[in-house]
């Protein structure tokens, strides 16, 4: 039986896991076809604009808010694409950035993402190249990031208050508001121009994007643990999460999608023989 992929706090990845993650990102960033980083980043904003934020009208669904389901499907597909380019062992899922932690309130962006070079080579988690020739004007440059004051990041209390909300629409709206703030904070600016995380158009090219959204997805997971995995507006269930082919009802359970979240994950031992129960 296949085991679940465990998505860890990025600060808890060991050296071999971080190395494997970087290898996957680095390789994907060299691939320009539909297996590569540039392809997946381009699904969010320019040039494809599939991302779903806030409420939209689609067909007979009035004010459908697919922010959480759409990004869950997006992360899943991206995670598979990265793992296609990563070593098989260790098996590493996308890590989450806990921007509400005491550590983040000191360092801001985790060091795994803020270090420009690793072992004398460019850190693929630090920045990536945006290649968007059909944008107006065309973009062909490395991503930029100018994060703000770490003290301004959301607190654990804010997160806990969020998780105590018991109505899905209320929860997703307030979580998305925090999400929006993190984008602006992480992109930031240098006084002249902003960073890419601060613009829907280019946000997904910044490697920290995926771990920010992993945190958002994790908070939905934690909320589901408290309030029910099927706790969602029923009219959303049959809606398709374009372009992924999954419906909302397909992405409610992270276990059904093959992953889970953990603060830590320690393999104590392995059963070498099948116990016989008489």
């Amino acid at each position, binding site marked *: 039986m296949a085991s679940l992929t465990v998505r860890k706090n990025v600060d808890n990845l060991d050296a071999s896991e971080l190395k494997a993650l970087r290898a996957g990102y680095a390789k994907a960033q060299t691939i320009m076809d539909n297996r590569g980083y540039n392809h997946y980043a381009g699904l969010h904003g320019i040039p494809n604009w599939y991302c779903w934020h806030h409420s939209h009208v689609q067909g007979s669904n009035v004010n459908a808010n697919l922010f959480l389901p759409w990004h869950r499907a997006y992360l899943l597909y991206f995670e598979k694409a990265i793992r296609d380019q990563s070593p098989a062992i260790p098996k590493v899922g996308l890590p989450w950035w806990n921007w509400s932690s005491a550590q983040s309130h000191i360092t801001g962006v985790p060091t795994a993402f803020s270090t420009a070079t690793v072992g004398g080579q460019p850190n693929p988690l630090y920045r990536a190249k945006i290649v968007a020739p059909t944008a107006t004007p065309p973009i062909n440059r490395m991503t930029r990031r100018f994060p703000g004051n770490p003290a301004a990041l959301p607190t654990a209390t804010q997160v806990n208050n969020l998780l105590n909300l018991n109505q899905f629409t209320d929860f997703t709206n307030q979580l998305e*508001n925090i999400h929006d703030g993190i984008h*602006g904070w992480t992109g930031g600016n240098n006084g002249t121009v*902003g960073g890419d995380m601060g613009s829907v158009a280019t946000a997904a090219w910044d490697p920290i994007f995926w771990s920010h959204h992993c945190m958002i997805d994790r908070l939905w997971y934690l909320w589901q643990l408290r309030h029910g995995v099927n706790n969602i507006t029923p009219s959303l269930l049959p809606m398709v999460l374009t372009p992924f082919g999954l419906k909302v009802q397909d992405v409610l359970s992270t276990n059904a999608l093959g992953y889970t979240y953990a603060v830590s994950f320690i393999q104590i031992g392995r059963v070498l023989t099948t116990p016989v129960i008489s």
Partner: protein
Amino acid sequence: MAPKKAKKATKATKKTVQATTADNAYRVAKIYKSPKTVGVETLPSEYVRADLEFIGVEHAGASYEARVYVNNPSADANTQPTAGNGYAGSFYVFGHGGCFGDAGHCDIHAPRDQFDPRRSHPLEPIKKIVDATDVIKSAASTGSSINVTVVPVVTSWTELVDTDDVLKFDHINLVTYY
């Protein structure tokens, strides 16, 4: 019902200045002050939650924090976001960063007809909600009217957008729940 096309906030009182906040690279855009007040007698006698709903918020441009103050029309970027200053909370806009498409790409259009399966235009104005229960209750208990001031602090932008006139919405609802 589709949201109305957003219009500019009604009263801009301050030109863009380089930020004076703790986050010093940020820019302060034009501040909104509600043109009329709401009498506290219009509020119900009992409620457990009071939301300020910002309807028809545009999000095509820069990303910003909108700091919402109740009964503090002199609030600006230097105002501490505390309950004592009438700070209700902030809403955040994750802006699109301008139009990277060809001519017309970012023009908001309605569905072709009732059979149009496509979702509405990504730049349709949005709703933002600030839970303002504590400051609304405080204002109602100490005064006779309520007004709203919104201070937009621009955090991130692209070369394609304006950072002065970022806060645009249609109207504000004060919604109470029991």
